[in-house]
């Protein structure tokens, strides 16, 4: 196919896997957004030359093995406690970059208290929050962010408010806290939103450097396995069903709520 092109070494490489990602193949299911987020996160860390100054925190969730892929110092945290663990690290190493990487179950269910109080303290950390509306790792149970009517193994008839309450928009709550400096909702399923996401990550690390305080990037993402769809179906379903509940965009920039938000 490529026979008409000159040999590779005469070409310029315009995109390659960042050197901050290890060579270990990722265990994620085909098409899962976790991989994209990992990749961009590590790309930014490479571009900012902060590999040696960054410590990551991976709590329990599908991304618990993140430390196999990210070539940086990392701590595995108990389920829900990533914000607390990140706080502990950051307070001891205030000049290093610290981020946590959390699922919706981790961040918005069992870890609600730690999440909100870290934001309220204005902890100078970055929180990456993968909202896939499900518990991927434990086999597809309802998450706090599961949307109404969505079927999971624990909402076989679809989530209803009577027993299960409402989809929990914790990102909106966090944006309201004075300690939160930058709060945004992103996605990673198309090239353009990936570019946006990369900008958001870059911005957040810059803020952390400038000691601006707490930054949260929610990534509305898919879980083909948990949703029982192909990757392409899952992305379509996500656009149609999740984005209306979790609209993309900045909620708070430079410590100020955006228009959109209010």
């Amino acid at each position, binding site marked *: *196919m*490529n*026979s*008409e*092109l*000159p040999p*590779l070494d005469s*070409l*310029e*490489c*315009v*995109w*390659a*896997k*960042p*050197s901050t*990602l*290890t*060579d*270990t*193949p*990722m*265990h*994620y*299911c*085909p*098409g*899962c*957004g*976790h*991989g*994209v987020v*990992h*990749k961009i996160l590590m790309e930014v860390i*490479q*571009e900012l030359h902060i590999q040696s100054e960054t410590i990551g925190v991976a709590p*329990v969730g*599908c991304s*618990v*093995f993140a*430390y*196999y892929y990210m*070539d940086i110092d990392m701590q595995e945290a108990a389920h829900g406690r990533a914000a607390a663990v990140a706080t502990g690290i950051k307070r001891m190493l205030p000049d290093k970059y610290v981020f946590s990487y959390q699922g919706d179950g981790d961040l918005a269910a069992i870890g609600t208290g730690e999440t909100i109080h870290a934001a309220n303290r204005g902890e100078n950390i970055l929180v990456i929050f993968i909202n896939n509306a499900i518990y*991927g*790792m*434990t*086999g597809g149970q309802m998450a706090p962010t599961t949307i109404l009517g969505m079927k999971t193994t624990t909402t076989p008839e679809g989530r209803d408010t009577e027993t299960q309450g409402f989809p929990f928009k914790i990102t909106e709550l966090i944006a309201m806290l004075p300690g939160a400096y930058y709060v945004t909702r992103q996605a*990673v*399923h*198309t*090239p353009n939103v*990936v*570019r946006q996401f990369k900008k958001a990550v870059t911005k957040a690390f810059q803020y952390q450097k400038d000691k601006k305080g707490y930054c949260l990037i929610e990534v509305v993402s898919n879980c*083909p*396995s948990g949703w029982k769809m*192909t*990757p*392409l179906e899952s*992305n379509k379903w996500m656009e149609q069903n999740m984005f209306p509940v979790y609209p993309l965009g900045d909620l708070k920039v430079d410590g100020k709520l955006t228009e959109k938000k209010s």
Partner: protein
Amino acid sequence: MPSVRGTVVIDVDTCKGCELCIDACPQDSLALSKEINKKGYHYAVLIQDNCTGCVNCALVCPDAVITVYRTKKTGKAEKIVTKQPVAVISKVQSNIKVSVDELPEGKVNL
């Protein structure tokens, strides 16, 4: 034929055949292979020579298995570091070490 020419190299052994790159390619340059790789997946392959090196496929690939090349200088080259082989596994504690062997393949319930 577009003004910018490019190509992609896909690590077919690691590709999981999710088709996201295929969907993202504005040139329809990609498709799934008929064959399966050693993990049992049909993998992505370049099927046309109209690739512009736009990087879209690489951006959405969850497994970071696509490398993109271009014929024309873009001025961005210095920002892109070609992947160097790195030693990935460390002995992390006096008595506990994490080894890649223990990494499971596919979904794990915890």
